[in-house]
Structure formats: C-alpha cells, structure tokens
C-alpha cells in the first residue's frame, strides 16, 4: 500500500464523504463508516479506518488513480480502457493483473496494474504479439510526434487519422497521464471529441456550414453547392472518409437535414467536421467540377477499357506496390501501362480522341 494514496484518501474523507466505485467512507459523530460491496464497518477511529482501508488496497488504488488532478475527458478515457463503468473493482483488478487491451485508431493500449500502479503498453495494433525487445522503445510522449509524422515508406502523413501509422515501436511503461499525452500526439483531440460525443455534447459542423465559413482562397468552395443535390459530397466522403483512408468516424452530414449516403466508418473516435485536408481538396474539386462535360470518341479494345478501369482502381486503392513486376495479367502492371501508353498515347502523353459527333 502507498502512503501517499492513503494520506490523500484520509484527507479527502475528513473533508467530505467518499463514494467511489463501491468504496464508501463517511465521517459520523461516532467515528468513520467504511464500506465496500459485501463488507461494512462503522464507528471506526482513524487507526481502525486505516486498517480497513489497508485490507482493501484495490479500492484505495482505484480511488487514487482516478481522482488525481486531470481533465475530465482524460479520466473518462482511462476508466473506459479498463471498463470501469461496468466492472466492479475486484474483477477489474483481476483482469488488469493479466492485462487488458483496447484499440484506439491503429493504437493498441495494454493496461496492467502492479502493486496498485497502473502502467500502459502502447504500440501499433499489428504488433500485439511482438516481444518488446524486438521493438524500438520510447518513454517521452512527445517522441510520438516523430513516429506519427511519416508512413512506413517515409512519406509525410498530412492526416494523423489516416491508417498509415508506422510500426516497430513501443511505449512500454506509460503512467496514466503519460498515456493520454502520448495518445494525443498520435490522434490530436481524439480523447476530447470522444468524450464530448459520450456526453452528447459534440459540436458537429456539417459540410455546408463548414464550407460557408471558409474565406480567402477557400471561399470558392461554397459555390460548389449549387442547390442541385449532394452527390458531390457523397463522392468526396467516399474518396476521403472511408475507413481505408481515415479512421475517424464521420459524424457530420451534408447539412442538419440531409444525411449523406456513404458509410460513416467504424472508428473509435468521431470526426466533427470536414478537415483542413478536405477543405483544400474541395477547393481543387470546385475548380475541376466547374468544367462542362464533353463527349469524346475514343477507340479501345475491350481489354484496354478494362485496363483503364483497373488503373483507376489500383491507384484509388493504393495497390501499386503490391502488383508483382511480372504479373502481366494485372492491367495496372507497369509493363502493361507502358505498353498502353506506347500504343494509345501520343508524344505529349495524350489520348487520341476526337469530339464525338453531335447526335
């Protein structure tokens, strides 16, 4: 048992009654009342109270860890990790002794308790079974910033919630506040927004209001909404919000009345409004979609048509690295693409097309 936690509990009990996860302590005229589920004593002097608390160290440590000064969303998050709202203290401590794990985006949070102290092992979800000594070890939450910056191939990640987190690292022994600080480096504001959603207080900003708010070079995006439906926003969310692209769960819609047709995703934490990457992308699409469609006449074999479709699919699903060098069956194979270019594109790289005859 830890002196500091016991002292903190006694001090707290002297100033107000304690009722926390089944632990109850009250100061009455005939002495203290102490109770945990299935066990109660009253009329205790301080020495007897200390003895009772000492016999129930799990309740003491549970009270202590969750009453440290900490922002409410972070406490709620730490409690959620170990199912504190559903599991009684003894059951929870038994499970924690063996280790409990939770996913958060691509993070795997492993929680344990030893001698009343919670410690967290934070790593990539794909490395649940990897021994610690095969991973690079980190301690400082701010070191997560560098890990979150680039994907496994070294490319810059402009979107922290993209499912492209690199692996190969572990924060093996984080204290509770270090855990929340580290999680926030990987997924900024995710704990706060998750908490607001739980409290039914998430400040969702839908597509229309978000775009109407934009000014400067982004002011133009508002004009993409021309009162002719919301298909374009369906396409944007299919392009950018799918779980294959972003692990947040979309909570915003076209507007308050109009829900989008795309899957909002299954992420643990919510997306409150179109992100800055989407606003930038929407600016580009606003310009591109201002063009009028034209009809083209273009000659392709059926296989070439299928190949164009396959090329779009392979780029959209980021499959290019997986296509084997000599797999000529795949239309997105590099040799196949080079052959098509040699045959169908001119020296400027343009398709040989003619405007279709007006019919």
């Amino acid at each position, binding site marked *: 048992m830890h002196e500091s936690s016991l002292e903190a509990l006694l001090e707290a009990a002297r100033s107000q*009654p304690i009722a926390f996860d089944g632990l109850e302590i009250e100061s009455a005229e005939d002495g203290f009342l102490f109770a945990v589920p299935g066990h109660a004593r009253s009329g205790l002097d301080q020495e007897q109270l200390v003895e009772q608390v000492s016999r129930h160290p799990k309740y003491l440590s549970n009270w202590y860890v969750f009453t440290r000064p900490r922002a409410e969303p972070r406490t709620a998050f730490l409690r959620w990790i170990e199912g504190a709202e559903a599991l009684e203290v003894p059951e929870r401590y038994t499970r924690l002794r063996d280790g409990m794990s939770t996913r958060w985006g691509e993070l795997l949070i492993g929680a344990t308790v030893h001698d009343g102290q919670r410690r967290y092992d934070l790593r990539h979800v794909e490395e649940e079974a990897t021994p610690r000594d095969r991973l690079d070890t980190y301690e400082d939450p701010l070191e997560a910033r560098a890990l979150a910056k680039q994907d496994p191939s070294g490319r810059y990640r402009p979107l922290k919630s993209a499912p492209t987190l690199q692996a190969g690292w572990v924060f093996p022994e984080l204290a509770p506040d270090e855990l929340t600080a580290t999680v926030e480096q990987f997924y900024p504001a995710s704990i706060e927004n998750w908490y607001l959603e739980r409290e039914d207080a998430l400040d969702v900003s839908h597509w229309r209001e978000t775009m109407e708010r934009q000014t400067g070079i982004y002011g133009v995006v508002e004009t993409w909404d021309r009162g002719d439906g919301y298909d374009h926003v369906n396409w944007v969310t299919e392009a950018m919000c799918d779980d294959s692209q972003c692990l947040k769960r979309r909570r915003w819609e076209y507007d308050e009345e109009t829900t989008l047709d795309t899957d909002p995703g299954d992420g643990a934490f919510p997306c409150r409004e179109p992100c800055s990457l989407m606003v930038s992308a929407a600016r580009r699409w606003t310009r591109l979609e201002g063009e009028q469609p034209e009809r083209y006449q273009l000659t392709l074999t059926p296989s070439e048509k299928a190949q164009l479709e396959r090329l779009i699919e392979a780029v959209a699903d980021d499959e290019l690295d997986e296509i084997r060098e000599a797999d000529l069956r795949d239309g997105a194979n590099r040799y196949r693409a080079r052959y098509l270019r040699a045959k169908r594109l001119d020296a400027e790289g343009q398709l040989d097309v003619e405007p279709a005859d007006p019919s």
Partner: protein
Amino acid sequence: MATESKEASHAPSQALVIVAHGSHLNPDSSVPTFTHADSIRGTDAFDEVVTGFWKEEPHFREVLRTVDSDRVYVVPLFMSEGYFTEEVIPRELRLDDWDVDAWDSDGTSASFASVTASDTGQEVLYCGPVGTHDSMSRVIMRRAETVTGDPTVGDGFGLAVVGHGTKRNENSAKAINYHAARIEASDRFDEVRSVFMDEDPEVDDVSTLFGCSDVVVVPLFVADGFHTQEDIPEDMGLTEDHRDGYDVPAMVEDTRIWYTGAVGTEPMLAEVVLERAADAGADVSAALEARRTAASETLSPR
C-alpha cells in the same frame, strides 16, 4: 458506477498555445513551432504548452479543447499581421467577441486582447504575432551573428530582410520595413534594406543593391520550405538549382552573401513567444531570464 466524490477538478493556472500555419505537403513547416514549444515547455513557465495549426492537427478549431487551463495565452507564430492573425485564427478558435480594434495596431503594433472562446468558455489572451514584436529585430540580428559566427557582426556588413511582398500578403511588407528601419536606426550595420520576392526592391538584386562586400540575408519566414530553400537561393543566384544546395557564405558577383534561411528556426524566437505572452500578463520572467542566460552561454565569441 458512482464517481460522485471526486476531488475538486484541477485547473492549471496558465497555458500557452502556439498557433501556426503548418502544411499538408511540407513536413518541415511545423518543425520550428514544435521546437519553440518544446523549449518553452522546458522552462516550466506554463502548466501546459500546446501547438495548434491551420493545416495540421490539432486544428485551430480543436486545439483549445485539448488545454485544461481556464486561462490561455495564444501566440501566433506568424510573421505579419493580417488575414490569418486578424480573421482566420480568431474565427477558428471561436473567439466570437474578438474585434481587431482591440489590438489597436497600425499593422506592426498589435498587443493583445482578452476574449472568450465560445466553445470551451476559456479566457483567451490573444496576442499579436511574433513577427511584429519589437524583439523580432533582435532575432534578425541574432541570425546575422549565428550565420557569421561573429557576435559583434555589423561593421562592413549589409543586412537584407526578405519578405513575400504585397502581392501575397498586404501586411508582409510592413513587418519587413518595420524591422529593417529599427535595425538601421541601431547603426550596427553599414546598410540595411528590405527586399521582396515579388515587388521592388527584389531579392534577385541583392548583390547589386548593396555597396558592402558582405551582406547577410535574413528571410522573415516561420519555416524553411519552398520559398526559403528553393525560390530565394535561386533568385539571389546562390545556386542554379536548389537541389544542388548552396554555400554559406557564397559569392554572387562581387558580393559575399551570408544566407541564413528562415528566421523562424532561430532558437531565440522562443523568447519572442514568451515576451508576447508576458505583454498579455503571463508571469514568465524567470523563464525569460533562464533562456537568455542559456543563450548567452552558447553564443560566446569564437
């Protein structure tokens, strides 16, 4: 389960939030912001030091909710006053009662304003950007000292302060001219000039604009990126192709050019952030003292 008898919820007394532009494309854009935040975090002047961005995460819209404190000093790591500091940042931070008049600025004299964030209810001390603080003149001069390795650099040297110019940001030129004038008034350098990327006098002409044989060129930019690492070195003739790199110093015609790269990467900029917060009432005197002592120890004459 019951959690009724929590201890009184804790609210640290003061937090610092550094807000910056960031980038979807350039991973180095946010580096100075993080570096200065880390250095201020190390002084313990604030209970929390947090960064927020326009193009990265946490976004301006969500940064304040990650801060526990009720009293938050927000310092923009921007080099001029204008569209971002006056319109975008206050709007996105939801400082609904913000009015630019509260800064009472002529374009280079922003102070601070006390406003409330409507989503979190926090008191925000919204400070002017680092770029127009008087101390920025010292940072520019420090840049000249570090690039030449001479803490007394000035005699026989010219100093050029580089900005975008008005085509891209109306107030950019104001900040450049302001610091150039202040440094000129200090009589430290033989010549001091403002030069621009897209208006006269142009950065392309640095080697002919100055009479001095040595010219230190300091771009008033937050981070190194396309402008400071590609456009400006090529425009000045330091290199034909930025991919080949350039020498410091480098001879262009008969002038020796000492090009410093973005002023925002100068460690001393952290002091300007602290001074912005101090001007708004933050108690950071011990931190400033500690930082200056550390800085003077690392910059002793060679």
